[in-house]
Each structure stands twice: as structure tokens, then as C-alpha cells.
């Protein structure tokens, strides 16, 4: 499966990438929401792992953009962020996020979430 890892932290992208590549997934990295939108215009994705706190376009803004675009609105999104305040979680879920994981996450939890969303 092709999975987007959207995070402004290179370390986080690398960690997400390692965890998912080990399970046989292909990973495309993006540094923020805008970068992800640009890359999604040129390719398809089966799932998006999304950080909230990012420059240029944050995760919530990306979710709002995704909602507007029919080509990507169906791609499931797992929100992965340190901002585990309930307000942030509710906002992300209201904007269409499919699952929520707090940092630091455990590999098994991420893999389980991905597996659940990809059926």
C-alpha cells in the first residue's frame, strides 16, 4: 500500500517510514500540508499519516482542504501529533480524520490503525 507520511520533523517521517516499510508499505514523505497536496496531485495514496503542528499548512488546514477535494477526500487519514488536547482531537475528527494517535506512538499501534483503515 502507498502511504503518505506528512510531518515537518524529518525524524518523525523517518520513524513512521521505518515502521510502515517493515510491514511492506511504500512511503511518500511530505514536509507539510501544502507539500502533501502538491505530491497528492501527481500520485495516489491509500492512507495519510498526518501531523498537526506544521509550518506553511498545518494538519487541520490540510484536513479542510482534503474535505473540499473529491480526488483525495476518500483517502483515510491517521492524525499523529503531540497536541493531544481533546479540542485538537475533536477538531481533527470533525474535519474528517479517521483515527488519532499521540506521539510518542508505538509501532504496533500505528500498524494496527493502518490495518484497520485499509481493511
Amino acid at each position: 500500500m502507498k502511504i503518505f507520511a506528512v510531518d515537518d520533523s524529518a525524524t518523525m517521517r523517518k520513524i513512521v517510514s521505518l515502521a510502515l516499510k517493515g510491514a511492506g508499505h511504500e512511503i511518500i514523505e511530505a514536509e507539510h500540508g501544502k507539500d502533501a497536496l502538491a505530491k497528492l496531485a501527481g500520485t495516489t495514496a491509500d492512507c495519510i499519516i498526518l501531523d498537526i503542528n506544521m509550518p506553511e499548512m498545518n494538519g487541520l488546514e490540510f484536513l479542510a482542504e482534503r474535505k473540499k477535494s473529491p480526488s483525495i477526500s476518500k483517502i483515510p487519514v491517521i492524525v499523529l501529533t503531540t497536541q493531544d488536547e481533546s479540542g485538537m482531537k475533536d477538531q481533527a475528527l470533525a474535519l474528517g480524520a479517521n483515527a488519532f494517535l499521540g506521539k510518542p506512538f508505538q509501532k504496533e499501534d500505528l500498524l494496527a490503525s493502518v490495518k484497520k483503515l485499509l481493511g
Partner: protein
Amino acid sequence: MAFGAAVLAAVSCGSSLLGLGLVGALAAAAAAILGIVVGLFAIDRREDPVQVQVVDEAPPAWALSVSLAQPDRVETKPALEFPELDDARKRLRFARAVAGKVPQLTEDAAFALIERFESMRGNTSKASVSARLFKAALTEGAGSGHPPVAIQAEQTRHVIKSQRESIALMAEHSRQSSKDLRSMGKELESGMDLLKSIEEITERSRLIAFNMAVEAARIGEKGRGFKVIVGELRKLNDMTADFSGQVAELLGRFRDYNASIVGRLAEETDRVSRDVAGGMEAAERAVESLIAASGTADSFAHEIAALAVVIDSDLDGVLESLQFQDITRQMIEGSNAMLDEASADIDASLTAIGRLEAARRNVILLESIRKTLLARSKTRGEKEAIMEVKE
């Protein structure tokens, strides 16, 4: 000092968790700066405006004084000379410079750690593949087109076992042959004994023939026919002696030949048995080594697999803990915002101090002018008018 130590610790260790100490130090620095700023504003307005003192005594940030006798001479220390503010600004600049570097340093450390674990995992999986191939070659004959080494070894072991049995049988046969030949030798000896008694009989009949010849001569013409018989008997005796001599010679040769064969057969059998047994033992050792190697390959493959599991779980732990790098980075970003605010506060304080200074100077001047004018005024109306004049 605590701040500097925290920065050094965070930079040298590259640990994201130590970044938390840095954040605390930054917050403390910001609070200290805010404390100074608050102190600067805490000027007691109830004091005689002529003598204005900063309430915060340690150390007095600034002082303003004016003498009634010389109202034009207002003495102040310029705010920019306050060493605490300069120090705070320097510390802010340093803190921001360091805070800017820490996320990159911790990220570099995180990447180096991940790279090391990935290379370890790569090496284990390579070793694991090699061990599997080795084991497969031994037990499954994978890819070689030949039957597996272990099966070949097992077959060889069976062959060696039946060879051993054949050789034991051969040695047994050889021993039996030696025994048979030896008893034949004994029979030959007894044949020689028999020949001796034949010789004895021949000797005796020769003696009888001689006596008969003497008797025949004595009886004269009558013994003529008897003489012929004695002659025939002598011929027979000679022939018998000749024949038994030939047989004795033949038997003797036969006996020697037999003895030599018996000796050589025993010797050869021993040598062949020894050589074959030695070869068999070597082959057996080789086969046992192969079978043992197969077991070693198996346990080696298991050990590598176990090591790979340990490395994988260690890597998972590292990946989990490295996520603090991102959390620390966000905290540092937050403390950077606090530093920006503290910096703005210092600038605003300096401006406010400047404005306050100017205003106080005006008030003091106004009051001294008012007092002079009141002293000089003559009427009540004049006094009231002077009192009504505002700043």
C-alpha cells in the same frame, strides 16, 4: 550557570530528553528578565516627587534627583546604562542561538542512531540468509541439483556399516581358510609319517628278498624258479623305494608351500582389515562431522533469528523514544516564542523608562516653577490661578 550547563548537556549528549532541562532554563531566564522589567516599573509614586527612588533596591536600577535651589539641574542615570538589562539581552541572544541549534543536533543524533540500528539489522538478516542457505544445502540440497548433504551422509553411513560387516565376514573367511590350510598341513605331516613306514616295509622286504636269494642258492637247481621270484621282488622293492622317495619330495614341497600360503594369507588379511578399517573410520568421522555441522548450522540459524528479534525490538524502542526529539523541538519553539516576548518586553520597558523619565522631569520642573511663582505671587487670586495650572 545552570542555563549554560543545561545547554552544554543538551548539545554534547544530543539527547532529546535533556532538551527539557534546556526549556526549563530558558523559561527561568525569561522569568528573570520579566522580573527585572517589573522591578523597573515599581516606582513609588507617593514619595516626594523631588526625590524619586527605585523601590527595587538590589541593585537600584536608576535614580532621579533634583534640587529646589537649582531646579534646572535634574540628575538621572540613562536607562541604557543598566547592566542588568544589557546582561538580560545578552542571555536572550545566547539562549535563542542555542535553541536554534538544539533541534538540528538532536535530529542528527536521532538519524545516526537509526542508521546504526538499520545497518545492524541489515547485517543480521544477511547472516540469517547465509545460515539458512547453509542449513538448506545440508538438509535439503537446495539449488545444487544433488541430494541433500545430510541425506548423502546418512546413506554413506549405511554403506560404511554394511562394508564393515562385509569386511568382518571376509576376515572371518580368511581366518577359517588359514585354519583349514593349517589342518591340511598337519595331514601332510602324517602323510610323511606314512611314507616312513612304507620305507620301513620296503627295507624289510629287501632283507627278506636277500635271505630268499641265499636260500635259493643253497638248494641249487631246485631253487631256480624261486630265484626268478626273488628277482621280481627286488625290482618291486626298488620301484617302491623310488616311488616313495618321489612322493616324499612332493609332499615336502607341498608342505612348505602350504606353510608359506598360510603365513601370507594371515598377513594380507590383517593388512587389508586394518587399511579398510582405518579408511572406514575416516569416512565415518567425515560423515559424523557433516551431520554435526548440520546441527550446528541449525542452532546458528536459530541464534541469528533470536538476535534479529532482539535488534528489531531494540530498534522499535529507539524509534519510540526518538519521537521525543519532535516533542522537544516543539517545546523549544514554544520557549523561543517566550524569548521573543521577553525581548519585546525589554524594548517596551526601555521606551517606557525613557518616557517616564521625561515626564518626571517635566513634573519636577513644573512644581519648582509653581513654588517659585507662588512665593512671588501677591494676591489670593494669583495663587489660585497658579495652583490651577496643570501639567
